[in-house]
């Protein structure tokens, strides 16, 4: 249960939850667009209206998937993003709004449970669909009787008229009370018993034509897909409405086909009426009835499809434009929401948003330099997180202009007067900081500059230009009598430890909200890859070092001592083996190693520029994950080049060396594949596996008529060199290829769930 509770707070579950929420308005927009289009094209032929409805229905899962993708792509990255340790020390602005954050957190807490509820609903609808499918299959075999030869022949003639090449069987069934079509590959028309004898031949032909029209139009497949969409987004009435429109228009399409072929619309309408009357009377439950009368009226009064209306392409384009507009509106809304449900990691989210801002799809008019400067320099210390994300979401310069105006207005202590004292004072402080504290960086960027801008001039400054008893370096102490929201009698100390003139803050007045160096290192280095975003947020909220100490202790306690030992061993291993210009744990290989541990197999190309790590059984018994690192300039700085997000089954491990490839199975069984070529020639294959220059295994075989030669060998852990020599016996050509292989089957003590956490159980897509 606790695992479940933890799961619903994972980024994937959160993204799903928000995608479900966003689909509420997306579904309404799409359904409204369809409604509008149907109004416009009320006189259009049924097949155009059907195409429109299908497009709207298909757009729904597409919108849902795109939303999910966008939210997932923009989610605050909690693991393995270097932003953490370069994140600017942005103190919260003076007007943070805790009440609103709380409300969002509450909503999100509820929302998290929406995902399992939704999943259960989807499971229900799909299970129900499966049961229905089984029932339909039974219908085809139970209580049926082949129709007479005459009708079978007539059906074949009708098939030919509609250019249907698949054989369609005609059965009488004692279980249906209406003619139905079932099956796609082997379609069968089921007629109620007595239908063939009780109706006139022309009437039966009408019905057969209607069902055959379904076959010719591939409606059965569309209908299946439609059921899948209904089940997936079952909670939205708009989906059911659009689906109903699709069904109704589909029948209209087939009606039109029948009339086109038979000619007499009124006779066909009468057939439908007779058929309905022959059914058993309606059960009380199904009192809302069908839409048959509507169809009959349509058939008998309207001139169906006679008018030539706007080309379907044009109408589809209109729908697409509406849909695209809805989608572009989405990212603009996203940052607010996303930001709000991760209150504690807000600075990170803001950074991520700020980083994402220049993306083309983010806004219609990308933020130009003056506005970016305003956000990232002028007000960087005082803007609230919500304001920051709102600003980033703006799409035009006029909106930004207005936002800035309102930003200052909100802070104006005397709103009625033309003078904004807050604004004037703020820019004065920036100017002062730039003038007095500039060193190797601009004055406003220094610790003293930031303190001055945020808290104003101190009430007292204690300057010790030549150090003091406690410190060998020059230092300054700033005293504030009172800082709102922080406390009374605050002393901030700045030390110039390297004599450069850059005074560094040694105690922050907002210390309560900030962690001191060892704890920050713990958060951003030691635990960077394994701490969840929730835990990180909780950690950042802690007010004292005692609490942080406790947090760290319980963090490791939860994971268990072996986990902790293994974790630090991995970091040490990474630092020892992968360090280049940067510490080993920060490199791509280091990151993978720290998160997933030693790989099961390592293979390297013969030029040593590519390395390939394979992990087995990360997600399940039959899956493997492959990481490919490349170092094109040979500096030892291997970069991850593939996206191992998707699990592979029996991965062909070696793309780089097409002459020879290796698959690694469970229990250290290595399968070597030697491609021979498409010709059916005879080959002689010599294969040699060596370890430390000692031959481990040699195999020789003659192969013919095979494109690939495979050999499976159990190999214990160790380093191997594989060599294969292939001789084409017809031409005498000889080919040699080699591969280094490192099989690592060492025990992985902290793998799995023993520690209470799945160590590296999921793959974050990097």
């Amino acid at each position, binding site marked *: 249960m606790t695992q479940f509770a933890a799961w619903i707070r994972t980024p994937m579950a959160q993204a799903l939850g928000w995608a479900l929420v966003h689909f509420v308005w997306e579904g309404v927009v799409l359904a409204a667009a369809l409604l509008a289009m149907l109004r416009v094209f009320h006189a259009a032929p049924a097949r155009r209206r059907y195409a429109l409805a299908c497009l709207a229905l298909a757009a729904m899962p597409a919108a849902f998937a795109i939303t999910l993708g966008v939210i997932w792509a923009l989610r605050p990255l909690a693991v393995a993003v270097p932003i953490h340790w370069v994140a600017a020390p942005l103190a919260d602005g003076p007007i943070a709004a805790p009440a609103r954050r709380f409300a969002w957190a509450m909503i999100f807490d509820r929302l998290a449970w929406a995902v399992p509820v939704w999943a259960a609903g989807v499971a229900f609808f799909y299970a*129900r*669909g499966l*049961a*229905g*499918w089984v*029932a*339909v299959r*039974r*219908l085809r*075999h*139970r*209580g*049926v*009787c*082949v*129709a007479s030869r005459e009708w079978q022949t007539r059906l074949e003639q009708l098939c030919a008229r509609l250019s249907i090449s698949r054989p369609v069987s005609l059965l*009488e*069934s*004692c*279980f*249906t*009370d*209406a*003619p*139905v*079509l*079932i099956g796609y590959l082997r379609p069968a028309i089921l007629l109620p*018993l*007595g239908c063939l004898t009780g109706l006139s031949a022309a009437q039966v032909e009408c019905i057969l034509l*209607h*069902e055959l029209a379904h076959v010719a139009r591939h409606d*059965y497949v569309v*209908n299946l897909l439609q*059921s899948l969409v*209904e089940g997936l987004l079952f909670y939205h009435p708009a989906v059911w409405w659009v689906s109903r429109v699709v069904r109704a228009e589909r*029948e209209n399409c087939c009606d039109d086909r029948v009339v086109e072929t038979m000619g007499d619309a*009124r006779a066909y*309408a*009468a057939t*439908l*009426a*007779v*058929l*309905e*009357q022959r*059914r*058993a*009377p*309606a*059960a009380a*439950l*199904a*009192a*809302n*009835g*069908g*839409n*048959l*009368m509507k169809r*009959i009226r349509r058939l008998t009064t309207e001139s169906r499809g006679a008018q030539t209306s706007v080309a379907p392409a044009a109408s589809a384009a209109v729908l697409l434009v509406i849909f695209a507009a809805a989608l572009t509106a989405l990212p603009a809304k996203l940052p607010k929401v996303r930001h709000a449900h991760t209150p504690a990691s807000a600075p990170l989210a803001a950074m991520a948003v700020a980083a994402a801002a220049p993306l083309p799809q983010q806004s219609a008019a990308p933020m130009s330099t003056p506005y970016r400067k305003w956000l990232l320099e002028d007000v960087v210390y005082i803007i609230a997180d919500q304001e920051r994300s709102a600003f980033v979401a703006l799409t035009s310069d006029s909106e930004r202009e207005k936002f800035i105006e309102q930003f200052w207005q909100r802070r104006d202590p005397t709103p009625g007067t033309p003078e904004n004292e807050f604004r004037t004072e703020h820019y004065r402080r920036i100017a002062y900081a730039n003038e007095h504290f500039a060193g190797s960086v601009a004055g406003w960027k220094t610790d003293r500059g930031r303190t001055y801008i945020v808290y104003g001039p101190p009430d007292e400054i204690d300057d010790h230009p030549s150090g003091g008893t406690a410190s060998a370096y020059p230092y300054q102490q700033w005293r504030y009598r009172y800082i709102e929201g922080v406390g009374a009698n605050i002393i901030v100390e700045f030390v110039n430890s390297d004599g450069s003139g850059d005074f560094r803050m040694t105690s922050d007045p907002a210390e309560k909200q900030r962690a001191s160096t060892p704890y920050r290192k713990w958060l951003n280095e030691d635990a960077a890859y394994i701490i969840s975003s929730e835990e990180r947020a909780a950690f950042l909220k802690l007010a004292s070092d005692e609490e942080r100490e406790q947090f760290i202790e319980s963090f490791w306690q939860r994971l268990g001592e072996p986990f902790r030992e293994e974790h630090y061993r991995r970091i040490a291993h990474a630092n020892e083996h992968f360090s280049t210009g940067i510490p080993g744990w920060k490199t791509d290989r280091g990151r993978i190693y720290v998160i997933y541990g030693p790989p099961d197999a390592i293979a390297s190309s013969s030029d040593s520029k590519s390395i390939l790590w394979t992990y087995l059984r990360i997600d399940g018994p039959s899956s493997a994950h492959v990481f490919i690192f490349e170092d094109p300039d040979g500096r030892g700085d291997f970069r991850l080049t593939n996206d191992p997000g998707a699990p592979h089954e029996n991965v062909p491990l070696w793309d780089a060396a097409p002459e020879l490839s290796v698959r690694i199975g469970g229990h250290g069984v290595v399968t070597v594949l030697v491609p021979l070529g498409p010709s059916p020639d005879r080959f002689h294959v010599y294969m040699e596996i060596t370890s430390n220059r000692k031959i481990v295994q040699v195999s020789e075989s003659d192969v013919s008529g095979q494109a690939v030669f495979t050999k499976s060998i159990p190999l214990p852990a160790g380093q191997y060199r594989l060599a294969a020599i292939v001789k084409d016996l017809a031409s005498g050509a000889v080919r040699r290829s080699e591969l280094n292989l490192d099989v690592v089957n060492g025990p992985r003590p902290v793998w799995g769930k023993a520690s209470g956490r799945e160590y590296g159980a999921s793959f974050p897509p990097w």
Partner: protein
Amino acid sequence: MSTPNPLPRPTDAELEILTVLWSLGPSTVRDVHETIARRKPTQYTTVLKTLQIMAEKGLVERDEKKRAHIYSAARPREWTQQQLAGDLLRRAFGGSASSLMLGALAAQRASPEELAELRKFLEEYEKGKP
């Protein structure tokens, strides 16, 4: 015939034969076998045997006056249909199966009001017919 015979529910094989009998009317074993064999390969003797069992059960009646025995269903199809439909059809049709089938008529039956409207339409149609 004051109390309806508690006829046993037909098995799937028996049901198929009943369906053929309802569709063709009274038929010889040969007719029944021919129809069934067009859907799936079946032995003549299997059909004969099944028909004999069904006659014992009372599901079919046998007319022995002619040289080739003529079999007919003991009950009209509506009767068996109701017996079977009660459990299967309602569940299958009322549930999700209906949305997986395509048909000229909606899965939901017409309401009484709609039926009345249909009747009116048909009457007008018959009148308008030349």
